């Protein structure tokens, strides 16, 4: 495989405007050597999926603090899978109650990161998850 930078899309689905976390993660991942596309606010799941495909990303990060995460994250993942067969790592952030985490995992999210998460934890997580995907390919 050609050694290229990990490509990450960070976006905020829904109407929530709290973007401090999403921006901090975007900056942190960029500083960690990843290629980050910050798509911004108030996007529909379809818009995020479309952009992820066009940008050929490896990771899709979604952030929501308004309580709409179950619907919005799931729809984004569905929409992406309908349009692309490429395996990507889905991660989520924001105010995510613990009991919602298994539901999100069932829907396909690899990890969720709440307030107070150090960026390096997210970096290691992404690397480990991408490792799993490339192992799958070699199998």
């Amino acid at each position, binding site marked *: 495989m050609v050694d290229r930078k990990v490509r990450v899309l960070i976006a905020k689905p829904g109407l929530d405007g709290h973007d*401090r976390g999403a*921006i901090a993660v975007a900056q*942190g991942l960029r500083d960690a050597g990843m290629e980050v596309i910050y798509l911004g606010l108030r996007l529909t799941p379809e818009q995020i999926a479309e952009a992820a495909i066009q940008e050929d990303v490896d990771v899709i990060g979604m952030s929501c603090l308004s*309580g709409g995460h179950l619907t919005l994250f799931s729809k984004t993942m569905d929409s992406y899978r309908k349009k692309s067969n490429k395996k990507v790592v889905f991660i989520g952030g924001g105010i995510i109650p613990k009991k919602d985490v298994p539901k999100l995992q069932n829907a396909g999210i690899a990890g969720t990161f709440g*307030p107070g998460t150090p960026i390096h934890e997210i970096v290691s997580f992404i690397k480990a998850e991408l490792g799993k995907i490339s192992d799958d390919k070699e199998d």
Partner: protein
Amino acid sequence: MAELKERRKEFRTTVDGILVDRVYSADDVPENEVDTSPPGEYPFTRNIMPAGYRTRLWTMRQYAGFATVEETNQRYKYLYQQGQTGFSVAFHLPTQMGYDSDHPLALPEVGRVGVAIDSLKDMEDLWNGIPLGEVSTSMTINATAPIILAMYIAAAEKQGVAQNQLMGTVQNDLLKEYVARNTYIFAPEPSMRLTTDICSYCARNMPKWNSISISGYHMREAGATAIQEAAFALANGIAYVQAMIDRGMDVDSFAPRFSFFFAAFTNLFEEVAKFRALRRVWAKIMKERFNAQNERSMMLKFHVQTGGCTLAEQQPLNNVVRVAIQALAAVLGSCQSLHTNSYDEALALPSEEAVQLALRTQQILAYESGVADTVDPVGGSYYIEWLTNRIEEGVQQYIATIDKMGGALEAIKRGYIQREIRRSAYNHQKAVDAGDQVVVGVNKYTSEEPLDLELLEIDESVARKQIERLQKLKSGRDKEKVRQTLEKVRQVAESTENIMPALIEAVKAYATVGEISDALRGVFGEYKEPSLL
């Protein structure tokens, strides 16, 4: 000074904050920097009122609203019966963004972060059983503030209460929305026009209503330092005052109804000094720059909310202590009203039990701590006076920089304020990640024990119920009247006339938030934020 090995190489109030010395003495507050003004006198450093909380305690105003108007009305009625007379309405995001509950973008958000208001019918039911002539209501609403205020006026009229009797506040501060919070719909210029439409309408018709709440809070939450929060809010305040003067209004006709909104974080002394400095700087701006004659125009009155982003998801009970310190800062800083956050808010919307503990925190401060019994009890402390002066300097420097750019609107359009805040936010994150800034339970004294909290859940049925309400409303109204009043809104939006009277007519015809916002979108278009990353 003796060679003592100190814990750290340097001490700062916060990351990127003020460098703090070992000890402060009279030498640190030279004669030309001593502020001897008494409370209630210009520049109001100590308090805008001469007797502070001895005449009246601050208003304990908890921000609340969820699900449909029925649930929220029950909550408000209960609070009213318990003696609460100050309400603070949280609206769900679709209302804030000008979408009806049945819009595809609205669906996942209905009733989540606040109450769903689609039409005047919802507003009438929200206040059912609560006499609007007797309570004061603060409404956190910005892009759709003119529509929501029109609904409040119309709902009160139905109760038989005239608009000149209404007491309360609309946030109505759009400039900070482009920097933080992000619930703008239109571009900055049309937003400025709508904001000042409200301010001048209130100046003429609603003498007891605060027409704007200029907010540093959201910028702080987005990462600003204390100095940046203060400076950027005051810079926005300057822009609003100037815009009103440019409309031909006399400064003293509207400035007494301008109010502010700030955060209280955990560095106790920095926060107290910030509030003192804010009062002094605003008074000087109003007197020296705008030639205000009425002292009320110079008085900075403000609401405080404790710092949402200081709440940690880990060991959530620690947040109770953080909130108590922050609330103490707000009270020592002589705020007019205060919202204390609930300890579970990094995990979910707050539960009833957590909200009650937050309110009790204020009551303990008010009735047990004794801090409200004398005005500005920390005034005269060498450290506090020095810190107040340093914050004033920092704020004045930022304001001078923003003036040079042509004012706050221009600075925001260039992305200057956004970049300053993002830099601070990122430096803070790096300092926490590196352990230089200790957050107990997060990067030090961490523990694994998971705590099971009872969290608030918003039922999926809320959206369905709200959409049924909306459909019922739409089928029962006079369609021709809706069409005519919306057409009038469009015409007025295209002119320079004040939008408020046309909006009041439209909401009375039961035109919805979404329909009216669409009419305005047709004239003003929608704003898409430029990418600054």
